[in-house]
């Protein structure tokens, strides 16, 4: 690294905001997908948009690649550092700037932790709906980058539906304020374009987010099944009958065992093959009528027991168990590969069967947790990254599962993003023309290709797109 760059960055963010020694850079070598790693040249932790813009401007001058990072809880390698690049961490930008209860919006810095926002807005009777399982640690900026989901996105939609405005620092260090109240909704929806761009366009530093009123009544049901397939079929039927619970989550036996052994023990029955967690929210009448309609369907597919959370504490426990499922699997092996697979909701049972077979063939330990309502499965494969052979089998299984999703008319990611993990799979789903279009959008934001390079869009596609231009290179 150029010492001038280091001094310049330190002058912007102060000594505590620049991590340059081996020990302090080391933890940034990966996100929660630990088998992909590279130590960043530097880690820079700005405090606000102004500092962030100054950092980006300096990096542009030195032509240094930049990878943005929130809390590093991502599961697709989106925050894995890149060659010769720095990590721009937003963890010190954790101020809730304003809450406007009348307009039901909040303005926050990008490093605010997802669940901290709902805690801050609770006194106004409002909450922020997208609730990824890592919500107690992940940042809202990271949620914007990945267009994160969560159990309750079945009803409320994923992050993109909750972002009203953004302040973006561009690759060159310009500040683009897309958060002013717009009387006129016409014009290009740049905010919509930016959400889910996985750090390829720029850095979102301030977010204006929609809040929802906390529903007056919430009912949480736990349906207990003797087979995973039966639970899947129940979900398919619930949706077919047009019911609208706010969340439909399936948890299988192995996961139940791991969760019940942990501090997050939720009281899931350990003799079940699968449990289905269903939540209904709304007015008292709505909840009552939905629950009445749900119960016979859940039982029709073999739920041998149906429990209702008696109070807020029990409800919170049921959810804490579900959301700690990934971490709880640490009891089984040192690493876990959380696959993010999507299929049409009618194909849930078929995919579960295929996944089980794929893992059995490769002698891998599989556990299943999924946002069944969204058709979003998380087959979880336990492994040990020190065992190269096992790691290779895990990656191979991941590919096979993704190919199966595509065959069933599904998608590559429900909520974790593409990152590095699924880069090559992009070419299985998209045509060269699709990918070329994505490259052109990327180049409009980041002509030098310094923003999280090598993620989301396969690099060679971009190079082919460029060489096809009349100028034979960069426009």
């Amino acid at each position: 690294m150029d010492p001038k760059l280091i001094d310049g960055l330190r002058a912007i963010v102060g000594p505590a905001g620049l991590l340059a020694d081996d020990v302090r850079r080391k933890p940034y070598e990966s996100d929660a997908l630990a088998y992909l790693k590279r130590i960043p040249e530097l880690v820079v932790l700005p405090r606000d948009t102004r500092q962030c813009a100054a950092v980006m401007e300096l990096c542009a001058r030195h032509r240094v690649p930049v990878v943005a990072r929130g809390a590093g809880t991502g599961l697709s390698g989106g925050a894995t550092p890149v060659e010769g690049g720095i990590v721009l961490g937003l963890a010190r930008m954790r101020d809730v700037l304003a809450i406007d209860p009348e307009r039901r919006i909040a303005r926050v810095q990008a490093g605010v932790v997802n669940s901290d926002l709902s805690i801050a807005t609770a006194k106004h009777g409002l909450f922020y709906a997208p609730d990824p399982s890592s919500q107690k640690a992940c940042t809202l900026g990271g949620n914007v980058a990945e267009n994160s989901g969560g159990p309750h996105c079945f009803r409320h939609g994923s992050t993109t539906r909750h972002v009203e405005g953004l302040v973006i620092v561009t690759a060159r260090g310009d500040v683009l304020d897309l958060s002013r109240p717009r009387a006129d909704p016409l014009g290009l929806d740049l905010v919509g374009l930016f959400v889910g761009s996985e750090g390829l366009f720029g850095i979102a530093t301030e977010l204006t987010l929609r809040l929802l009123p906390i529903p007056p009544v919430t009912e949480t049901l736990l349906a207990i099944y003797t087979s995973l397939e039966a639970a899947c079929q129940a979900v398919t039927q619930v949706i077919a009958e047009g019911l609208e619970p706010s969340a439909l989550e399936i948890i299988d036996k192995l996961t139940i065992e791991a969760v019940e052994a942990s501090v997050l023990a939720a009281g899931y029955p350990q003799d079940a093959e699968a449990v289905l967690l269903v939540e209904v929210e709304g007015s008292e009448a709505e909840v009552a009528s939905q629950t009445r309609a749900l119960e016979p369907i859940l039982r029709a597919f073999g739920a041998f027991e149906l429990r209702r959370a008696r109070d807020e504490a029990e409800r919170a426990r049921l959810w804490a168990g579900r959301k700690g499922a990934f971490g709880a699997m640490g009891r089984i092996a040192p690493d876990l590969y959380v696959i993010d697979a999507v299929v049409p909701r009618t194909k849930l049972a078929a995919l579960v069967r295929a996944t089980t077979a794929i893992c059995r063939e490769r002698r891998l330990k599989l556990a299943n947790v999924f946002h069944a309502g969204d058709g979003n499965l998380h087959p979880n494969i336990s492994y040990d990254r020190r065992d190269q052979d096992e790691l290779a089998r895990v990656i191979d299984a991941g590919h096979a599962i993704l190919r199966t999703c595509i065959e069933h008319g599904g998608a590559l990611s429900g909520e974790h993003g593409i990152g590095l993990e699924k880069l090559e799979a992009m070419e299985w789903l998209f045509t060269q023309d699709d990918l070329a279009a994505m490259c052109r959008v990327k180049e409009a934001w980041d002509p030098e290709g310094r923003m999280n390079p090598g993620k989301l869009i396969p690099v060679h596609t971009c190079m082919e797109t460029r060489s096809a231009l009349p100028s034979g290179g960069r426009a």
Partner: protein
Amino acid sequence: MSTRDDAPMTPSALVDYAKSLDCIHCGLCLNSCPTYRLTGAESSSPRGRIHLMRAVAEQELAPDAAFVDEMDFCLLCRNCESVCPSGVHFGAMMEHTRDALVKSGRSKPRGLVRFAFDHVLRKRWMLRLATRAGRTLQLMGTWRIFFTHLGKHGRLLADVPDIPPARERRRMPALTKAACDRRGAVAMLEGCVMPELYGRVNRAAASVLSRSGFDVQVPRDHVCCGSLHAHNGDLDGARALARSTIAAFEPLVDEHGAPAPVVVDSAGCGAHMKEYAHLFASDDPWHGRAKAFSARVKDFSEFLAAPLARDGLVRALRTDAPGQALGRVTYDDPCHLCHAQGVRKPPRELLDLVPGLERVELPYSEQCCGSAGIYSMLRPADSLAIFAPKVAALDETGARVLVTANPGCHLQWDTGLARERRDVRVMPLAEVLELATRPDGRVTASRPASGGA
């Protein structure tokens, strides 16, 4: 487990490698960690620190000064253990690493701390001498001159509270009889620093136990449980003190000859004493004795909230709304009570039993106050920064009394609130209950004679 002094210290011995593999790198611990919240640097987070330990063990990283600093920066509050779905034993890992860093000469314990660990905390007469000398210097007004002359070491003493007069430092009697119908017998830990600085808290706890119907026994020859040693890189010292503690309490029995519960009014000590077994290898005979001993250890609040004692306490409580005199009360969870012992409800339940007491919740009450044993003395600037949001949270509650259950937190709040000029009293739970069960007519909770800082 233990590392022998004569064995060469390889980098992998610096780390409890097997435990480090329990971490699955999910990151759910990050936001629970006070040092990560302060710096935003992942090397200061639990996941980051485990990652560093594992990297040292796998020889990807040198255990240099920066590594030692990140290990020392940790408060050992163990908030991360409360949120870890994978059940990582972070506290034990950190104790192992700190001990190994000191043994291998990579971390130098500060001279005064070393001296205190090796000599003062182990001998009652040394403790008494130290506090007597300290009190004399404080009364002469030469305290500040004394510690500025000590230079770097003196900083450790800058925040030492006013040492109370001798009558408050008198030892507890070996036996305090139940003040009413006897329900049972307990043994109580008097502790090392507690009787010197907070003897009145010990006496309050004993009074409450006695008024609730329990004989309270105190082993006369016991000094220190060794928790400060374990947390600060001296596992050998901690083991020696654990053995002497177990031996001192083993003979104390109830009226049926069964081992008496060991009641502890200091959360840091109680947490450590409940985990004595992990200091000894499983084939060490002390391992079994430690397990049996730990099963007897109960926090003061935990013991009193259980049905038998609770019933006795309820009978002893005054009925003339003694809680009213206190004004609004809030409770701050000591880390080693909520995170290390999982005791959250009992202190709240006991406060709610006091007639006339108005209790409100303190936001983020499970976040560390920055006291962390001797951390506030070793790293005063970091400790202050970690304390700051706690004051802001307290302001939100409008409470007049802040209740805690650990001497370190008590001290941190006392000095911190005096510095921030807040008119809020800090009271240990034992003192609140003592007031509420006091048989004579007075319920004016006056400040202790020695006053705050």
